[in-house]
């Protein structure tokens, strides 16, 4: 291995990009090797959605997943984590649904929740997915962005702490 390969930059092997577009917006992009209708299906059928939304690295378990993907329909996800005594719920409403190219939903579990827009753009059998989160204010973004991310981070830190202290949580 030479010095250049040892560079500290994280390799972008799968091509997920994240950009903070403005102080209220975050944009995530990724290309999938499948037609848009298939990717759309994986976002809208609960039995498929629950298989990928909570990666193992998050350290959380998805207890329930209800998705009623149509305009005006709602969703509710409940998570469990070894360090949390109560399940943690994420919920909101679908504001716009255009199969297989667009889903817009609200995030209502907190006051400053974002409006999330996902678009699926097909080109030569591949699909460019663009996920756009628009927060009501800059403060809301800083407080809520990647809630699940921040949460799993917090929990894993707590886990480490507990392991270090040699104790288990008793609520």
């Amino acid at each position, binding site marked *: 291995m030479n010095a250049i390969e040892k560079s500290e930059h994280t390799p972008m092997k799968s091509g997920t990009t*994240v950009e903070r577009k403005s102080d209220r917006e975050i944009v995530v992009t990724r290309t999938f090797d*499948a037609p848009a209708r*298939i990717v759309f299906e994986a976002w809208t059928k609960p039995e498929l959605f629950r298989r*990928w939304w909570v*990666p193992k690295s998050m350290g959380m378990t998805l207890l329930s997943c209800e998705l009623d993907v149509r305009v005006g329909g709602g969703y509710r996800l409940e998570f469990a984590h070894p360090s949390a005594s109560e399940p943690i719920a994420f919920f909101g409403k679908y504001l716009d649904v255009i199969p297989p190219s667009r889903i817009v939903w609200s995030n209502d579990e907190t006051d400053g929740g974002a409006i999330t827009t996902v678009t699926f753009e097909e080109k030569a059998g591949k699909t460019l997915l663009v996920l756009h989160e628009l927060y009501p204010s800059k403060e809301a973004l*800083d407080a809520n962005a990647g809630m699940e991310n921040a949460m799993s981070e917090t929990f894993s830190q707590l886990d480490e702490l507990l392991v270090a202290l040699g104790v288990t949580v008793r609520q």
Partner: protein
Amino acid sequence: MVQYNRSDLDVSFAALSDATRRGVLEQLWRGDASITDLAEKFHMTLTGMKKHIGVLEQAGFVTTKKLGRVRTCKLGQRRLEEEAAWIDKYRKLWDARFDALDQVVEEIKQEEKHDERNRKK
């Protein structure tokens, strides 16, 4: 691991919300510059540029050093790394999700192919 907290991030993002300040950071990526140089480059008064540098300095993006009568600005490396770490964590979450989604998508594709073959038989 990089440590950070929310209020630090607030200051950082506020500092980055201004186009001139982002321009100044870009300029400093290329090399250190004096406040006078920067004021000229961005067509501003010395006082105006001093204010911008003050905000960037407070957020830790820039450090300044006075050499004789000239104040030189350079990038504050540590804070840029923190900022990158915040985005990087967010990216890692989506990356993990999307890797799992890849597998689900691949399975649906295979099933469809299988169904198609069966239909042709």
